[in-house]
């Protein structure tokens, strides 16, 4: 099958990176597991004869395990930054519960007669522990370590969210780019790693039952040395660090373009969109990728670097409307075009910020904006007909929908129904061409690549040319789908590199070229 062949090819082409990621993945898991063993087993032993402490410790470890991974990692950024350290700490916390619990259950579960025999033979507390309790509990303890290892190999994919690498880079990159081969390239080795780890530990579990108990401390010591060796080899050299989302890393109009066109050479890590902005704000990352109108730009006081060599394609926002509507209500076009060129990147960022960070409603933000631009008019009768405006499922689109609603109601006799939160691009577009909605805001780049799937010969030629792309979309929409693409609203929600404003100003950096010059000195 086509797909399978594709996978093998992809797999082979990525083998170096894959090997590196498997190494990182195993290293992170191993180190965190070792620390969990070093802390968890003694903790489990200490609570054996202390019932209240036991329920407290097991309770806390249980709660730790219920915290979602990404939340835990986000929580650590102010204290531990990004990269290896917070990843290992988080995995360590996840591994604690099964290890503490199994140590506790393993020791409390041994035949009381054997413990009594140990005491009666004249063993002191340490001797009872090390000669009888621990060896007898060892299979159960190792079962706990097995559980922890398998959990950790799974959760370690999240390490890719905070720049610690591992197989999550492939998995999340693949999800972001809708590339099944890439997802499999991360998921299959991760699953394999879990199986191998589980089997190796089960071997240890068997030997612990039958003699050869000395294998256990031995293998622990070996694993510890390997893990530590890995930990030291991974410590980053200093200098500026860039953090990019998995999607950005894999895209031609992202990291690959940065390398090709700008000769970008900075140390870079893969990181989740959810924690990236905060990490930049906390100074853990010097440069990040992001969207140029994201409200977090303002919230975290970040500065967008000018794309002076035009690698990021234009994503100009404009309303796409069904032709039958524009024919039926010609007055609508003038009304909708009132917004043309009115909202630039920083205005859109500001509006997003008001909703996302000041928690104002999109209706209020839309009204305030129109009032300050002198466009707000009291609603008219709304008796001539009903217009349905759709939106995708993110803040910016909600705000635009509300602005258009107010405009239509204020300048025409039409009524408006908003159908918001229509998921992704294809859902919105399908709704439009199937006459479920009459209009929604679409981005030129998205329409060009995702909806129209512009052929490569055209896209290579005009991809970074704002106007050419916009005109191509406008023509094709009209030709293929009988849709009208109105004039651009003004802002361009595209990929951008950004830095902490203070940091950028200190270094005198305004554009990506200046950033490259600055860092290559």
């Amino acid at each position, binding site marked *: 099958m086509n797909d399978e062949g594709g996978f093998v090819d992809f797999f082979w082409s990525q083998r170096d990176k894959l090997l590196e990621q498997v190494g990182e993945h195993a290293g992170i898991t191993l180190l965190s597991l070792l620390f969990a063993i070093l802390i968890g087993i003694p903790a489990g032993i200490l609570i054996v004869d202390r019932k209240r402490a036991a329920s407290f410790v097991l309770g806390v470890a249980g709660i730790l395990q219920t915290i979602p991974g990404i939340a835990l990692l986000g929580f650590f950024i102010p204290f531990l930054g990004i990269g290896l350290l917070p990843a290992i700490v988080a995995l360590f916390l996840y591994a604690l519960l099964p290890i503490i619990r199994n140590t506790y259950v393993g020791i409390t579960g041994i035949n009381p007669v054997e413990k009594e025999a140990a005491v009666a033979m*004249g063993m002191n507390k340490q001797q009872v522990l090390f000669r009888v309790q621990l060896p007898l509990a060892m299979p159960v303890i190792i079962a706990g370590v097995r559980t922890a290892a398998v959990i950790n190999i799974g959760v370690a994919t999240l390490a890719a969210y905070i720049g610690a690498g591992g197989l999550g880079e492939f998995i999340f990159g693949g999800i972001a780019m809708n590339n099944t081969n890439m997802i499999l390239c991360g998921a299959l080795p991760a699953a394999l790693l879990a199986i191998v780890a589980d089997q190796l530990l089960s071997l240890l579990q068997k030997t612990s039952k039958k003699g050869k108990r000395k294998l256990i401390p031995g293998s622990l010591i070996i694993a510890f040395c390997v893990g530590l060796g890995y930990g030291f080899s991974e410590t980053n050299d200093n200098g500026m660090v860039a953090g990019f989302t998995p999607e950005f890393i894999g895209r031609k109009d992202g990291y690959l373009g940065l390398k090709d066109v700008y000769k970008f050479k900075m140390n870079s890590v893969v990181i989740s969109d959810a924690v990236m902005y905060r990490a930049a704000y906390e100074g853990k990352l010097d440069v990040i990728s992001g969207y140029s109108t994201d409200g977090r730009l303002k919230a975290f006081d970040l500065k967008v670097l000018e794309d002076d060599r035009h690698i990021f394609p234009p994503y100009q926002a404009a309303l796409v409307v069904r032709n039958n509507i524009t024919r039926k209500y010609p007055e609508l076009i003038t009304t909708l075009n009132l917004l043309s060129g009115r909202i630039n990147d920083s205005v859109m960022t500001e509006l997003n910020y008001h909703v996302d960070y000041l928690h104002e409603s999109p209706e209020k933000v839309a009204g305030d904006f129109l009032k300050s631009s002198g466009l707000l008019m009291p609603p008219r009768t709304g008796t001539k007909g009903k217009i349905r405006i759709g939106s995708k499922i993110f803040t910016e689109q909600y705000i635009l929908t509300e602005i258009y609603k107010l405009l239509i109601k204020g300048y025409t006799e039409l009524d408006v129904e908003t159908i918001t939160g229509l998921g992704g691009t294809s859902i919105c577009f399908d709704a439009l061409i199937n006459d479920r909605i009459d209009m929604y805001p679409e981005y030129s780049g998205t329409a060009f690549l995702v909806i129209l799937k512009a052929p490569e010969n055209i896209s290579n030629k005009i991809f970074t040319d704002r106007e050419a792309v916009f005109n191509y979309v406008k023509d094709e929409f009209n030709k293929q789908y009988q849709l009208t693409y109105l004039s651009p609203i003004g802002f361009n929600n595209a990929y951008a590199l950004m830095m902490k404003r203070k940091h950028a100003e200190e270094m005198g950096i305004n554009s990506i070229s200046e950033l490259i010059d600055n860092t290559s000195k």
Partner: protein
Amino acid sequence: MINIRNVSKTFNGVIAVDDISFTAEEGENFILLGASGCGKTTSLRMINRLIEPDLGQIFFNGKNILEFKAELLRRKIGYVMQNHGLFSHYTVSENIAVVPKLLGWDKIKIKKRTAVLMEKLKLPPEKYLSAYPSELSGGQQQRVGLARALAADPDVLLMDEPFGALDPVTRVHIRKEFMELDELSRKTIIMVTHDVNEALQLGDRICLMENGKVVQTATAEEILLKPASGYVNYFFGEYRQTLIMQQALLKDLLPLITEHIIPGKPALHFHETASFSDVIQTLSDPGYNNKIAEIKIKDGTSVWVTFDALTEAFQNWKNRKENE
């Protein structure tokens, strides 16, 4: 050797042991006998400080056991548990070597001692040295448990129902082996049991307990024939008569026989070390009408007696003992 003075122990307000005193002399087999919950096991476990008494003192070789560090005391006292209590992760030899190892013996000495003990307890080392307890039969497990208690050659051995978990056939068998074991003959043994037969068979002296108190401490014969209280009679109960008959050996009865009959008549043969109980059991067989016994004496001669004459002698023996 072991001297218990006015010892009491309460668990959560329930009195387990109530002001007991007894002394087990050197080399003696001292039996703690009683029904379940009478405090006999608690008493035993206080001797090696598995339980600390609330009141009273215990002396080991004249020295208060509190003067020893608990684990050092325990290494001097062998302990045999009811359910063998072997370490399931240790082999037979490792189990036997536990106490010598704690005492810091060198490896060669431990190896030799283990082999000797295994031979004596009929566990051929070549076959069982590296076996795990789970691979052994109940009787074998109990023998390893005994070997472990004997390994460091302690002067005192505490045994908590050592045959309690065995089936009746194995139990009789192992008990016999124990009695024949030279290792045990020199030791002071304090053994807990609820089995009257076992107590009478193994004990030099028996200490019968009831509700945490000592009812009577005496030899087997004395406790049967001169019970200190109604409870003693009650405890030995319906077995008492049989037990007394078991205590009455034919050689003790021979001097009391008044009426001998002419040798040569067809008779059943008994050795003089057999008990009156053995004779009764055989002669009371309904298929045997003759009721004449030929008793072989040590010097090779024999005496012919009728069953009736033997019974009369037993009654006299019993009366005499009870009035002694």
